[in-house]
């Protein structure tokens, strides 16, 4: 009996040791990172709203690697070294893709060899300019301008602009505690929009709150935002 247990233990040890050799694949180690930009300026988007797809050609079965764009317009992905095709789907983001010189389409070729930083230039419908958010008492006031970038046949109207205040650094239409909305038709001066709201009482004490403004463009799914601003409470 003793021998049997010894034999079983030996066998188990053998299996566990040998499996170490075969099971462990190398982890992806090359980091692709960058931002979605217009003329070098990052485009801020909503949490979990915009994503890009990476396709690695040459395999028999294909499936995209989804890369989410962060609130501040940045993205990053840990990948294996390989040539990738990067695509931003037409419905994604408050912007349009720019035709890529190499592929003559919206696809961007990324030949990943080690870490790489890649900013992706796109054509936004609008840009938020000079966003200033300040807090006085319990009132939060935002002043900003809107510059229309796409003015040709693809131009779109502003459906509404909204000031969001949130308890956490995630601030968008789904994550907020107070909002103030202004319909696009009620904007008199696109270069000088001002809105304010009163922060409601919080159930738990905290030292800061976060705010930013968002722009909903008519017929475009994802919203455009200004950078998140931290305000002392």
């Amino acid at each position: 009996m003793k021998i049997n247990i010894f034999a079983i233990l030996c066998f188990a040890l053998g299996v566990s040791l040998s499996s170490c050799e075969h099971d462990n694949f190398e982890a992806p180690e090359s980091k692709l990172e960058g931002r979605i930009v217009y003329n070098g300026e990052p485009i801020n988007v909503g949490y979990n709203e915009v994503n890009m797809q990476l396709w690695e050609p040459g395999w028999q079965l294909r499936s995209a690697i989804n890369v989410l764009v962060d609130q501040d317009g940045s993205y990053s992905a840990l990948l294996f070294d390989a040539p990738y095709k990067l695509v931003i789907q037409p419905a994604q983001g408050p912007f349009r893709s720019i035709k890529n010189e190499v592929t003559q389409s919206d696809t961007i070729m990324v030949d990943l060899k080690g870490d790489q930083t890649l900013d992706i230039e796109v054509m936004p419908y609008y840009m938020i300019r000079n966003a200033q958010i300040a807090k006085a008492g319990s009132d939060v006031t935002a002043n900003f301008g809107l510059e229309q970038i796409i003015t040709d046949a693809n131009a779109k109207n502003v459906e509404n602009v909204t000031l969001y205040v949130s308890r956490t650094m995630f601030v968008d239409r789904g994550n907020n505690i107070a909002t103030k909305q202004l319909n696009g038709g009620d904007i008199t001066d696109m270069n000088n929009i001002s809105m304010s709201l009163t922060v409601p009482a919080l159930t738990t004490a905290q030292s800061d709150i976060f705010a930013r403004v968002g722009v909903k463009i008519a017929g475009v799914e994802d919203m455009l935002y200004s950078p998140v601003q931290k305000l002392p409470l």
Partner: protein
Amino acid sequence: MKKYIFMLLAGLVVGNSGCNNDEFLDLEPKNILLEEDVWTDKTLVTSVLSNLYGRFPDFQSIEDWDNFTEFDEAFASNAGTYGNHRNADYGYGSWGMWEYGYIREINSFIQKCEAATELDPADKAQFLAEARFIRAGVYFEEVKRMGGVPLILEPLTYDFSGDPSYLRQPRAKEHEVYDFVISELEDLKGILPNEVSDKARATKGSALAMQARAALYAGSIAKYGTSTPQVSLPGGEVGIPADMATGYYQKALSAAQEIMTLGYSLYQKKPDLGENFASIFYDKNNPEAIWVEDFKLKTGKTNGFTIDNQPRYQSEEQQGGRLNPSLNLVQSFENLDNTFAPLPIMDASGNLIHYTNPADLFAGRDARLYGTVMLPGTQFKGKELDIWAGYMRPDGTIITSSNLGGQADINGDGTNEQVVGFSGPIDGLEFTAQTGFYLRKYLDPAAGSGQIGTRSEVWWIRYRYAEVLLNAAEAAFELGQPEVAAGYMNQVRVRAGLTEPLTAADITFDRIVNERRVELAFEGHQLFDMKRWRLAHVVWNGNRMTVSDLTTNIGKADKTSTMPFGLWPYKYLADPNNPSNTDWVFRIVLPNPVTTPDRFRLGNYYSQIGEDVINNNPLIVRQPNQ
């Protein structure tokens, strides 16, 4: 040694005798039926067919309560399902369906039935028609979810040549699938019998009802698809040309009008209109049901919907109460004067309004509210529901407990009183009425229906006459005949106690949308209705809601409704020494597990086709916006 020799010898004997007798390998099996046996016998063919019926897909049904909580109709009072209220986005693959295994078996049934020689010709025609009805229904289910799919009408068989590419078929255009469904049913309505009392099998009525609905869906996709031009594909696999709308609406109206001549009628058997509405869903002696999935006690085919959703207090098991209808839905039921209003819980200056009985708050509303939702202060199976959240003192402070029917000392006299209902609501405690409401529709009042050992035989109604009337009303409205639409809609509304008729001028798109919302809640229509009107991304737009968002614009089709709210009743404790003598007040709450608003993306309009499918068949075009 001798032993081994004998064993070898025995083995040789067996081996030799096996080899000599070829028929040994060719015996008739005694435990399964062979195909040539099946196709000679009416009963056996019926059992094959009933297997096909039994696998008919439904997105939301009484066998799958949690799908009802994906949107704003209900909150899921079940810890494992809170996730439905915590994730913002719907996955692109949600509600997807690629049932080609099932379709192949239907096709194969049709092929073999056609080839059968020993069946009675009348039986054979009936079987074929029923199988084609199921196939049309499955393609309708496919096109609702996926848009155009490959139309495969015969069983495909691989020839093992090493190259399966000849089996690949591209997606049909979306309208081609609808056209196929409509034309099949056009054919079948002449073959299938007009048996109003036959609910579980295909009849002329069910063929026409499915046809009316399919044509209405196609018509509205053609019409409202213009508002979302991104939701289309250049090859027409997704999206229907706008100029086809009128034709489809005409087809929907004529099919619905034909059903009106067949002998179906609205269920009107009980004097209490609310109870009457609830009875539609459990009384099987029913002129309204057209096609159902039937269940029967003491067979393998029963359902646990009542077990899952019975009020926690009088539950026959230690569970229940999972589906909590939302205040969003409850307030959509009109007042009897045809107006929309939030529930009057506060007067103009912001003071809470006091009620003698909790049910008084809902007085003067559409009777379908009582028939759909168990309201506080009403009964189920002859017992009070006991839904109340606690005592409220005049200064607004609340005395409650976190246990079912929990107790506390409210007046300092040293004895404890019950301070919360035995059915809750208790925030975050599963199975309590966390929105303040339970579901009544499809709950079985029969004794034992809430026991795991008995279960329920309540049926699942896929098509009923009231929906046919609403389909006719919508088609007529879209064809510019509002007076016709008003006539059909008023029939449905009178049954709900809304006796003041709507005039042609009253019929608006908002009215059509709200009528379907309240009449057909919890019947599996909501998602597909919102999709075909292209309202899903407007109503479930990912915006966080406030109470004022909730209580304004009631009855508007494009009202944001991303989070399920609740309404909690409290006993108003004017005199702590006499806690039994109390008024009732109400407060709007957002249940604690609801953290994130729902966001329906443009890419959700047509569910994702799996990469495995596309890898196997590169002819399949991807869905837009994903």
